[in-house]
């Protein structure tokens, strides 16, 4: 560490600290107009706003258009395999509590091939932020049905229209035990940044579903949630606990049933933080087990601790 600090003094701050200027890396390979650009920009802004040191930013992804993400961020990162980014991030987060890991995945990663991992990362409450860039279609493979494609969606694998019930991200996440669940729209950059920042502040497994339009294979899919396209971007009102009569009607983010009721509204529904509660994270629990075990009359050095274990087996 001392070696590192002595080096730090000689390095210009614009190399050390994350800025919107020094974070972009490879030019994104996304199509023009893709919603994912907006998520990437929000991530740059967020890291700048937080004064993050570049060396401590770690970005993980799965497979798909969205998951090219880490290549476009000039910081540490891993482009992992399809569906398992959350499990990878679990191992990283638990073993490196000093990092706040961000995971960027698509709807295929989150709800199809990696559906099991989303559920279990949520119930474990592993500290990390997961941003799901949901475009309701498989874009990288050129238009197959995704787990969130609406009924009737015509794709190369559903030429007569999708017939399988789409997965509802918010209902799924709240039911699985995620402790922070928010929904936003890539075309609403201010709201997107706000949601990502609140997710980053949350101590636990925080998820932001971002409607991120695929201009190539699902054009106009999210226009109904945009005022400038003739739709409505309705932000849910959170309870302020200000004692006013209108506060009674506002949404209590700790109320699971209320969150599910809001999520059940017909498309395009509303946006904002649906659910946020506090419960012990997996990281805290594991750290506690280690602390208890190490304080429990075991030998001072690690080698002596193992020696004690061998002594019992004589």
């Amino acid at each position: 560490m001392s070696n590192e600090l002595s080096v730090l003094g000689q390095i210009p701050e614009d190399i050390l600290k994350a800025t919107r200027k020094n974070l972009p890396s490879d030019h994104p390979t996304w199509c023009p107009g893709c919603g994912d650009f907006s998520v990437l920009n929000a991530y740059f802004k967020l890291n700048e706003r937080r004064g993050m040191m570049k060396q401590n930013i770690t970005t993980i992804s799965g497979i798909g258009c969205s998951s090219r993400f880490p290549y476009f961020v000039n910081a540490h990162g891993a482009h992992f395999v399809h569906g398992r980014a959350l499990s990878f991030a679990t191992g990283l987060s638990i073993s490196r509590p000093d990092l706040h890991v961000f995971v960027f995945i698509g709807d295929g990663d989150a709800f199809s091939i990696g559906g099991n991992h989303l559920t279990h990362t949520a119930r474990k409450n592993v500290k990390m932020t997961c941003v799901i860039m949901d475009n309701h279609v498989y874009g990288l493979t050129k238009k197959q049905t995704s787990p969130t494609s609406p009924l009737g969606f015509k794709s190369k694998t559903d030429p007569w229209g999708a017939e399988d019930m789409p997965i509802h991200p918010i209902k799924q996440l709240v039911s699985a035990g995620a402790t922070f669940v928010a929904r936003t729209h890539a075309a609403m950059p201010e709201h997107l940044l706000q949601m990502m920042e609140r997710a980053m502040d949350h101590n636990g497994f925080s998820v932001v579903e971002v409607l991120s339009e695929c201009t190539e294979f699902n054009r106009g899919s999210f226009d109904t949630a945009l005022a400038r396209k003739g739709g409505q971007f309705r932000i849910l009102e959170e309870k302020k606990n200000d004692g006013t009569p209108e506060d009674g009607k506002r949404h209590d983010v700790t109320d699971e049933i209320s969150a599910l009721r809001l999520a059940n509204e017909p498309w395009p529904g509303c946006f904002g933080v649906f659910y946020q509660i506090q419960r012990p994270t997996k990281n805290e629990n594991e750290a506690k087990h280690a602390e208890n075990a190490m304080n429990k009359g075991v030998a001072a050095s690690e080698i002596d601790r193992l020696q004690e274990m061998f002594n019992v087996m004589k």
Partner: protein
Amino acid sequence: MAQTAMQTSHGLEKIHLEEVVIRIAGNSQDGIQSVGDMLSRLSGRSKRGVITFQTFPSTISGGPSIFQLRVGGHRLKSVGDEADVLVAFYQHSYRDHIKALRKGGLLIYDADHVTPDPDEKRFHHVGVPMTSLTIEAIGGTAKDKGKNLFLMGLLAKLFDLESDKLEEQIKERFDAKGPKVLAPALNAYHAGYAYDISKIGELFQIEKDPIGRAHPQVCMDGNQALAYGAIAAGIRFGAGYPITPWSSVMEILRRELPKFGGTFLQAEDEIASIAMAVGAAYGGTLAMTGSSGPGLSLKSEIISYAVMAEVPILVVDVMRGGPSTGLPTNVEQSDLNLALYAGHGDTPRIVIAPFSVRDVFHSVVEAVQLMQEYNCPAIFLSDYSLATRVETWPEPNLKESFHIYKPDMSPKGPNFLPYKDTPSGISERIIPGVLMLDGNYPTISGLEHNEAGHPDGSSVMHMKMTAKRRRKLQTLREKLPPVSVYGPETGEVLLIGWGSTKGPIEESVDQLRKEGMDISSLHVKYLSPLQRGIDKVMDRFKHVFVVEMNDSGIYGYGQLASLLRAVYANAKIKGINKTDGLPFKVREIVSAVKSKVMQTVHPSV
């Protein structure tokens, strides 16, 4: 059972044994395993060698179960073909295991449950009403729980074992459960010890180590050796999913790793568990996952990722019988191909198979050292027989085996290349938190990438990086110790084996040499990359048989035999294979070798 007789103070003849094989047959809930475990431990504490073998039914509760124990004063290599003493708790135990008793051996049966064949004259029969005597001793609880301890008392008397040390073990085991459990346990043991064995007419004494051993002996099974080996190696993160016979490794690590500041997670599935381990490894912690065959199948996509992204990770496979769910509680060496090739694309990796419980410990330490040096996955192929067998072995010197891993977090650069195409193929990986002095940070990737870690799928780059990943393993091959031969360096017959068959193969060599055959053996511990020199050894023998617990396959050769034929294009290589789910017996190898050599009409046999 080589023996010499002398008179004892009891007036009974006391027979001195070099070694003895005892098989206890009953049901899985009889506590046979705990008796076997205590006897093994005692033997270790009294400087004898022990190797055990046990079977469990794969049903949830109940079903026949055995524990076989070979105890002797010299270094033991296998669990022994035939039992000198068979203990039968039930009629089915007698029926199924009497054939395992050698001619002239001693049958001790529970007279309350077993009626032996009255015409059977090949064995000494001793009936002891173990069930009723146990109930009597415990005080009429009308349950025969404790019969195992009665038997242990009986065996302690019969074999003149250190009874005080056995009592100590009973206390260690039952003390925490309170006096209501401990007192009956001791009563049952004492009743067995007090049983009048004059009917047997003999007392036995098993030899202690004639030379004495430098280190104290430790006594454990292969999965314990694996778990504690991983801790010694510096593993501080693991994730797994329960599966027989791997589960006890994760149970031990879940309990013990926190004492070293580490953690072991139970994941939602096999894939998540290897993904978690790769994530932790990326973060700079030595990490592992493990399973048995079905789980290794599932992990293969991420093994391929770890090869591509050059992330070190230990993947354990405690092999059982396959394919599919197969034989969950039997042994087989049929996952070698999977270990060598699991994963799509060209995926060079390290594969190591241990041959004894002691070797499990030392080889895990070595596998972890190698994987971090070469930045690739290391597959560790243990098996069911190693996992469940208890062995006594000299306590390891932890000063040599214990490692604390500290990742290199020093700043890097400028122009640092985490996938630098070096002559050895080995490059230096980067961990999150490391400062890059030029502000340019690497990404780890499953896509083909350039030396900086950014995607580049060009033909030139793919050829260069494929060769780089392969060259690392070729570098390792040069550094591995060359193979060594057990027996003379030149001869007629060479047996080649890998994994847990080393003991019975070497005992077969000993026996066949006594019978006049010119035979040696070679053990392949490093299966990928293969050690150098195997071809030269094979050249010095007329016949080469690869002894494996797997099928001879469509083309007539087992999995290692096929690999060796592919690598060395040597038509001499033939196989001795079996798939009965049990460890090789010495006599099986001996008779297979004889008949195979006969097939080629060899005059000297």
